[in-house]
């Protein structure tokens, strides 16, 4: 089983990289781009783990290490 964790900065936390991307896109003529938020995706290969246990285990990984909940939000997607 695979899990895909998406991590992004919380609303209200300044995201200079997102701002730079938005600016660059405007520079290229993509005028309809509004706010851009940058984040990261972490793909995990999970070994022997049941589909029912997986969500809580990955959630633990996120709160303990993968995301810093002071500044970041995360979401988890389980893939087959």
């Amino acid at each position: 089983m695979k899990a895909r964790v998406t991590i992004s900065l919380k609303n209200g936390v300044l995201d200079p990289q997102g701002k730079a991307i938005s600016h660059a896109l405007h520079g290229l003529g993509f005028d309809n781009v509004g706010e851009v938020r940058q984040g990261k995706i972490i793909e995990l290969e999970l070994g022997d783990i049941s589909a029912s246990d997986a969500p809580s285990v990955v959630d633990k990984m996120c709160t303990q290490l993968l995301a810093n909940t002071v500044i970041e939000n995360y979401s988890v997607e389980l893939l087959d």
Partner: protein
Amino acid sequence: MTEITKEIVAEHGLSESEYERVLSILGREPNRTELGIFSVMWSEHCSYKSSKKWLKTLPTEAPWVICGPGENAGVVDIGDGQAAIFKMESHNHPSFIEPYQGAATGVGGILRDVFTMGARPIANMNALRFGQPDHPKTRHLVSGVVAGIGGYGNCMGIPTVGGETNFHSSYDGNILVNAMTVGVAETEKIFYSAAAGIGNPVVYVGSKTGRDGIHGATMASAEFDDDSEEKRPTVQVGDPFAEKLLLEACLELMATDYIVAIQDMGAAGLTSSSFEMADKGGVGIRLDIDKVPMREEGMTPYEVMLSESQERMLMVLKPGSEEAAQKIFEKWELDFAIIGEVTDTGKMILTMHGEIVAELPVAPLADAAPEYDRPWVKTVAPAPIKASDVSPVKDLGNALLTIMGSSEVASRKWIWEQYDHMVMGDTIQRPGGDAAVVRIHGTDKALAITTDCNPRYCYADPEMGGKQAVAETWRNLTATGAKPLAITDCMNFGNPERPEIMGQFVGCIEGMREACIALDYPVVSGNVSLYNETKGVGIHPTPAIGGIGLISQSDHMATIAFKSEGETVLLVGDTSGDLGQSIYLKEIEGREEGAPPVVNLDVEKRNGDFVRDSIHSGLVTACHDISDGGLAVALSEMALAGNIGANVSIQSDLPSHAICFAEDQARYVITTTATNAEKLLQNAQKCNVPLQNIGTTGHNELKIENTLAISIKDMRHVHANWLPDLMTVPGHE
């Protein structure tokens, strides 16, 4: 097995005659892996086939030289059982294609060259050349290269203490990224690359091998065309954290006596490291490809041998030490694999899945490497431009401001503030002066380090330019109070198959040779980067010189900043007033013309020795060499650094614009207390050194009597803002 066609040979960058030579060495057709190995070993990058003939003419010896060119880096004795190990190397093509990773891995490579020899790196420098400031790619390239150099060096915890940066249209399509590292080792603990001891294990350590950078070495030896951006996948990705681990693990292993030989895997990876170790030791090597730690599945022997994955080393260990050595690498969580052994066959034999996949004779492959005497024509030196040939502008104050805020002279602070230049706690002269100075940890000694080259001078007159580049590094070291020891050279040129380019190369080497001999300042390491051309247009010849000097007592050091008000300002050296190739001519007249200033090496040595002795005797409070932009720029830089102005008046028959902006060589500005000025003037007379009292420090402006008066504030404004303004995307902070 694929048949070797003409096309495949050409793709590997081998000429028909070179392929004929392959056939005669082997007595058969090579297979694909063998062809790949020949191709990288005989590439310009690894074989120096176009440059060797001329490099051999450079002086490489002095009583303090422990190891000259030919090893991973040069080694000089700095006393007390210590040695400085240093080298500069280019990473031009990769940095143009992917500026961040190209520059970062350039730094990684040169660091490995230095710590392979047993030194802990203590400083990084870099010499950068970009296209015109307003070229559409320049901003992107500057920003990526600077971030890449910083990203790697900062993480490693090695201070990047300075360097130089030029902007010129000749680099629009070929930027130059030359990185230099200086390290310190014990003279008794220097490691070389010659493999020895039949049956000794050959060990691979560091990161795993992937498909990165296959054919980087051949790419570095080919001209660019419009498709170059397609070559992106060949650029390697650096992992400075892995390199930091590798550095610490290697130094820990080097403290034992387990290592027979060690060589980093740089360009051409496992191929060139194993061949060089075997060739230098006059032995054979057998490698089992299956044992190489690999990052990807299904790699072929061709890919493994040519991969340029970073942060890897190859070593020959003493028998019986494998287990203890392995423990050290496990502690640092790095791969450690015994992948072969030293043999007496004189052959490189590679096996995979129990079968021989390549079998090549070591010595013939190395000895028969092509060496060319390429046709060349001497560059015709242009006529000098006298001060009287250039009508002065009305407002020389404005001219000074224009020059202080020009691409040539403006502050590089925006660049070096992105480099951690203080980590390791020994940087006693930060970037922005004539040379950076770094203490040897735990001692009162220090090394002064600088890189210099004026490509406009080299283009106009390669011989004079080559001489000037060496002399300027010598002068910059001298201005800090250091005794110049030796240089490393990074020779960046266009296509050597064109006689005029080859002529530039030959000219620069000749000038460098003369300067090195006259100044007792040999070449101990270096690198050649040719084919820096796009669509037939070559870069300005750029022999970047990195020099190091020794300061035996760190309080005997001078800096460029004016120290206090009311000190006497003195000018060392004569001024002819010629303006050929000067920044004044370029920025004010818009011309890059005429002969560069003449370098008189006897005068250079005489004046420099006087300045150094004066610094050592404690009479000098500030010192700055006069180079780009002339006297007015040198005074301005001293005023800016000390935030103190000066009032000067120069006795001369020359017109004011020549006094202010001529770039005559072998000159310095020094300051001293009012009481010591007379003593210095007397000493100078004894040594036959022209020394003139030109004024006094003080107030908040630079005033040159009857010529100009500019406030430090105005000067700082133009000087500080040019580069940040260039790099700021309009409308976006």
